[in-house]
């Protein structure tokens, strides 16, 4: 059967709707496990204007059906990224999306500015990381701020801008609308939920930062709900994520209204999860004789 998996997001065409979730895929290391040429896109871990050290360890904790992380956006900064990482990524036949992080609006803008004129295809604005004290989620839980920062960053880039939403809010649709009115070309959701685990034997939190971001299959129902709500509230393309482990999980997000999907935690616990999700999507399409993946988008009303 000749079927099409191509999706288009803000005028960029992806060969298929499967990408990694930012921060869960180090291209060099993951290339041992995943044929990067098969991916719709590679999303680079949060990049800031200067190098960030990240948080103290322990940075990960297991939870029932999920995990907490408090990596804190450890990254080498945009300059090192451009010198050392981007050339490596350019060898692959895939689209490059850079997730950008900052403590101030200016920092976000600086990163966006420095990525001008590069092979980076799109930017993803991370205003939803619960693991940094300043910036991060503080920007992503206030609709006015979401609109403002989106607008500012847009002014420093001519690349399409994805705004990544935090699930730690009362009304996800308000944040989505604010991002769109700030100029977002697409939305991605969800980032992690703020959580905590206590070691009852040592009587202290497992994470050095006490709280961290919850991800993995445990959060999938929340993510699907938010994608569904947002898809019915705004008119921009959506990249859905949160707990996707299989092709059927991916289809669930697409039926809820996602144009593309990202695999995060599942790729940590099973390094070949991304290609398995892709195969799973194809099997589903074969099973139900779907010619074009776009037929399925938002089919559940």
């Amino acid at each position, binding site marked *: 059967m000749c079927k099409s998996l191509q999706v288009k997001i803000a005028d960029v065409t992806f060969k298929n709707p499967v990408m990694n979730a930012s921060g869960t895929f180090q291209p060099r*290391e*993951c290339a041992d496990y995943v044929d990067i040429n098969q991916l719709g896109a590679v999303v680079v871990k949060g990049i800031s204007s200067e190098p960030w*050290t990240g948080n103290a360890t322990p*940075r990960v904790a297991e939870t029932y059906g*999920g995990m907490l992380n408090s990596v804190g956006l*450890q990254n080498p900064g945009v300059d090192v990224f451009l010198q050392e990482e981007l050339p490596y990524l350019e060898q692959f036949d895939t689209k490059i999306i850079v997730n950008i992080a900052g403590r101030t609006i200016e920092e976000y803008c600086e990163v966006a500015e420095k990525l001008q004129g590069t092979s980076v295809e799109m930017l993803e604005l991370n205003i939803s990381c619960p693991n940094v004290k300043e910036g991060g989620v503080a920007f992503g839980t206030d609709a006015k701020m979401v609109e403002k920062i989106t607008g500012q960053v847009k002014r420093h880039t001519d690349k399409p801008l994805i705004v990544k939403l935090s699930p730690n809010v009362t009304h996800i649709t308000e944040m989505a609308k604010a991002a769109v009115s700030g100029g977002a070309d697409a939305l991605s959701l969800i980032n992690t939920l703020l959580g905590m685990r206590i070691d009852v034997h040592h009587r202290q939190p497992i994470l050095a930062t006490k709280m961290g971001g919850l991800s993995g*299959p445990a959060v999938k129902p929340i993510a699907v709900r938010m994608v569904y709500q947002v898809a019915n509230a705004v008119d921009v393309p959506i990249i859905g994520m949160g707990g996707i482990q299989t092709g059927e999980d991916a289809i669930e997000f697409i039926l809820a209204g996602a144009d593309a999907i990202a695999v995060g935690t599942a790729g940590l616990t099973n390094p070949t999860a991304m290609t398995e999700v892709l195969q799973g999507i194809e099997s589903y399409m074969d099973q139900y004789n779907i010619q074009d993946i776009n037929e399925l988008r938002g089919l559940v009303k």
Partner: protein
Amino acid sequence: MSQNDKKKRMTAKILDNRQIATNIYEMVLHNDEITRATMPGQFINLYCRNESKLLPRPISVCETDHNEGTMKLVYAVVGAGTKEFIELQSGETIDILGPLGNGYDVNQPVKEHIIIGGGLGIPPLLELTKRLRGKKKIVLGFRDKLFLVNEFKRYADELYISTTDGSVGEQGNVIDLLNRNDITGDMFYSCGSKRMLKAVHQWSIHHQIEGQISLEERMGCSFGACVGCVAKIKRQGKQWEYKKVCTEGPIFFNKEVVFDV
């Protein structure tokens, strides 16, 4: 390289799984490919069957038999995952990933090796001990019951044993053994608790002996994807940066490591 040639989670057959000391178990796994690729100091991920527990359990490889395609692991019962592992029977299978990590650097010009293991840091030193060439002084600190001592004896030029309670060997820990017996050499290799490694570090500075040590951290993936497992590693003497224990370690040169706990 297409997806077919990529590494992936594999299945290993369990050939043996039994208790060898209080709370400590030995598991023998069969998997040709992974066994053949494993170097001393490397580890593998074991995955739980119960899907409520997603994260890997990293366990060091104790011994490998390339002819048989088997590897031996020694593990302690700590929490829910290792509790699940002790129930596994010979003949069953388990999902594994590996080999992971860098392993020891055995290409240094060394005449006298000192191998220092404490508790569960002892098993990961066995395959290394077998492969090292030169004089080998082996220093092992147990809590109470001994394990793997006969295996180490075979490859030891000198073997020192302690138990915390003094019931077997000398009373005390590995530092007591090192000091009391004036043990010296050109290079040491150590694995054990953070507290022990820190004490060994101090001992080594005092005696100006270079060493390679194995670090442990909580891991989200164990293959370099999540940046969860970092340790502070010195850069050009003074400054430090976070390096990934799972791929840039778990073995680091002693002098590089920042001990700030």
